[in-house]
């Protein structure tokens, strides 16, 4: 069970309080009607599914009920950092 730091609560809490919410930084297009079917499908379905550092979203469902972003290594499952919605994505340290 992962230990996850909620950037709103500023606390590390166990994974069962949280709900995974998919890849992060996939913004909904502002004008969907202007998109081609291909671009719309890209938004809906295409995911980086990165092996390694992965930007993703979590919901502190049984806590503050806030969505937040995280940078986590999908090979070690270790969190690099978590940050609030709207904050710039942290750069991946090479």
């Amino acid at each position, binding site marked *: *069970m*992962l*230990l996850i730091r909620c950037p709103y609560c500023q606390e590390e809490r*166990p*994974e069962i309080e949280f*709900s995974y*919410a998919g890849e992060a930084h996939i*913004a*909904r*297009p502002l*004008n*969907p*009607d202007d*998109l081609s*079917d291909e671009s*719309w*499908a890209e938004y*809906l379905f295409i995911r980086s599914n990165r092996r390694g550092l992965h930007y993703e*979203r979590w*919901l502190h*469902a049984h806590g503050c*009920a*806030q*969505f937040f972003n995280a940078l986590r290594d999908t090979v*070690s*499952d270790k969190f690099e950092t978590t940050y609030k*919605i*709207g904050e710039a994505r942290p750069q991946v340290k090479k």
Partner: protein
Amino acid sequence: MTINRKETHGRINRDKPIKFSFDGKIYSAFDGDSLASALLANGIHLVARSFKYHRPRGFLSAGSEEPNALVTFDRGQGRVTSNVRATTLEIFDGLVAYSQNNWPSLKFDIGAINDFFYMLFPAGFYNKTFMWPKSFWDKVYEPAIRKMAGLGPAPIDEDADKYASLYSHCETLIVGSGPAGIAAALSACEKPGRVILIDEQNEFGGSLLSTPNLTINAIPAWQWLKNSLAILKGRQNVTLLARTTVIGYYHDNFLGAVERITDHEKDINQNKARECLHRIRAGEVILATGAIERPLVFPNNDRPGVMLASAARSYLNRYGVVVGEKIALFTCHDSGYEVIFDLADAGISIACIMDVRDQVSDNIIAATKTRGLEIRTSTIVTNTSGKFRISSLHASRINDEKITSTEEIICDCLLMCGGWTPSVHLFSHSKGSLKWQENLGAYIPDTPNENTISIGACNGTFGLTDIMTEADSGQSKYTVDDMDFGSGIIAATFPTKSDPAKIKAFVDYQNDVTEKDINLAVREGLKSIEHVKRYTTTGMATDQGKTSNLNALQITAHAVAKPVQQVGLTTFRPPFTPTTFGALLGGKDGDTFHVTRKTPIDGWADDNGAIFEPVALWRRARYFPREGEDMLAAVNRECRATRESLGIFDASTLGKIEVVGPDAAEFMNRMYTNPWMMLKSGSCRYGLMLGEDGYIMDDGVIGRMAEDRFHVTTTTGGAPRVFRMMEDYRQTEWPELDVWLTSTTEQWAVIALNGPNARKLLEPFVEGIDLNPESFPHMAVREGRICGVETRLFRVSFSGELGFEINVPAHYGRALWEVLFKAGQQYDITPYGTETMHVLRAEKGFIIVGQDTDGTVSPMDAGMSWAIGKKKKDFVGKRSLNRSDIVAKGRKQLVGLLTDDPNIVLEEGAQIVADPNQPIPMDMIGHVTSSYWSATLNRSIALAMIKDGRALTDSDIYIPMADQTHKVRVSTPIFYDPMGERLNVL
């Protein structure tokens, strides 16, 4: 019974003699014995049969690594446990155990015929045969193979015990309470943090329990242990957990541990949990899990009486049990001598000492000579004899890997010492990396992946002095009187004069994997250690290879002629030892498996004979049968009563979300297909919600309570996902919207009144709302009071009749229901359940999301284009509605169905074809989504999704069932009151 006991040895309580039974025979023992030590004290070595060859087996070890001595532990009905290791089973007065995997008896086991025909059962034999004739596989071979499965008996009765679980947190978790673990705990308890010390055994002390002759700081080991435990017990910040096995080491220093609470207690206490799962989150984990002695692999190394040297030491020193009268030792490591010295010092006759090595240290030679013993160097065991217990062995001298001479030696016990394997199981679970330690012939921890420290033997540190120093972070505050632990060589394969094909030198005892099986696997090209494991099943028995993995690895490396570290290592997999399912449930069974959500009115329904159905986590009243009624009769009555006069329905399970804020309408506009900006306060609208993929996700009636406030309802099962989706968009896509969401599902009880007399019943109880149709039209919502209680009163109808949904604070729900029910007697008020609700709505052609739609239905498919705000620029899912396959022809559309024979009620899920005479596979054009007998219409009705179905209206289609084909006419999905006039009743 004292014949095999040493009065001078052991920690057993000789003041408490007890009786126990094994295979129906009564034996004596003492409190403090394990079943293994008790049986050995009675001279019993034969206790089990192996899995494949049904070979007679005894005790290999004295601990949880035991592969052989598995028994069935029987505490009475519902308390029978299979495959229990006799070496870890604490004995109590009256304990009953049986041997297993034998028939008709342990001594005369028919299955042992497999041992005779072993040549036909090499590793992977089943891949190579049982293929012809093909039909024999299903009928003959496979049933026969399946019948042979298993070790212990399958359960017959439900478990009579209960289990518990809890969460624990600590700064320091120490696993293992040998000298390293105790020393670490003594250090850790001086710091402010919480300390948990765990040991799988009933007593703390680990290896110290078997080495009373050592001294620590000039104090005898057992006294030091006692003193140390007294200190630890006196500390507020220390929790000691004995009989507790850490089963797995998971992410971020989360560990699971199972405590065995009652299995060792004589009397059964119904109120006590049998086991408890501890879910532990630790700041730092100190692993002090020790090491496991390795057997040696030589022909017939599996006879009862052949055991690990360390086991004999434990049986002697801990239990006061002598494992034989003439004991031989076969070793390649100095540590084997410590055991022989303890045995010799206790006056036990030593048959011979065989050391693979050509040289042994002077200290050992001197210590051996002092005891009048001699060492045969360069000597190996090349065979053993004895049917149910070893009676002799062949000692062969080797020179340059060749046998030069062989001598038969009489013995009744043979001890093996093949060196030590650090217990890195938990370290590996945590994804710490391992490194090969050549001098140990084993893997030891390299880089930890968590905040983990490995100390003592599990870290490859042997010898008490070094262990204590390491455990004490190098402070060396301990002085230890300890024989040098010494060293050894790794000897996994030995020369033989026999035909290797005929030798059975066991590597994995329980699964009967021999050296030649491993060699066969390699010969056949299965060279990866994982292939060897899977092909031979080595390491896959209930001991998970604790004593066999390293031997298998060495033999494989030898066979492929590569260094061990290039062959790799199989993955260590949780749990460390087999773990009761019940303990892992942590009490989540029966009523507590999943909570049952009940409405405030559920109790009334229960009192009034409702039949319930599960809907998501809720239970809902399905119908209210009267005496002698089946479901159909009850539903017909409920439907008629509602249409003719008045029905009352508990709609409290509907999901409810309060959407509030200056931008509430804009938010609703984006979330739902419908337009919301112009909806007036006090009005309701049916809302349709899509996923971004354009498919119908949820629906419900939504009331605008004020300019900035909406009362949203959702489907019963959909409420959590709708709320989450709304929150997701609110927080992450449209943070600029000033809007707030609150789940109010459980705040409101909802009573639906439907039927021509609904208003008449309601009127006298309502204050502050004019129910007159002109001022309170259909699809309006008002706030006021009912019976003096605040209410949100919706005029809506899911039945087609005049209808009201009365929302009151949940705790008034039942009281209001009872008032209305009592007053409604004048109208013959009839309570109805979900089934009648379904029929009434189907007569009106209203869909149920999840029944008539299935996650692949667009609003156009469902005939609900009217619910889409045509002028809206965007809403969730809108873009997907223009995708090529969504607007293509041939999509399934919602229609009504009327059977040719009005008495036939179609089966829900039945498939529809245009041509019933086509061959299979048929071209299916749709399926029945809802189907009922309509008491109102006195005929059956159905809803269906059919490809281009609306264009088929008034034409015939067919429904081929297994026994007959139904002819059906496609119709509009609205069967009753198409103009909606019944809503206008006064």
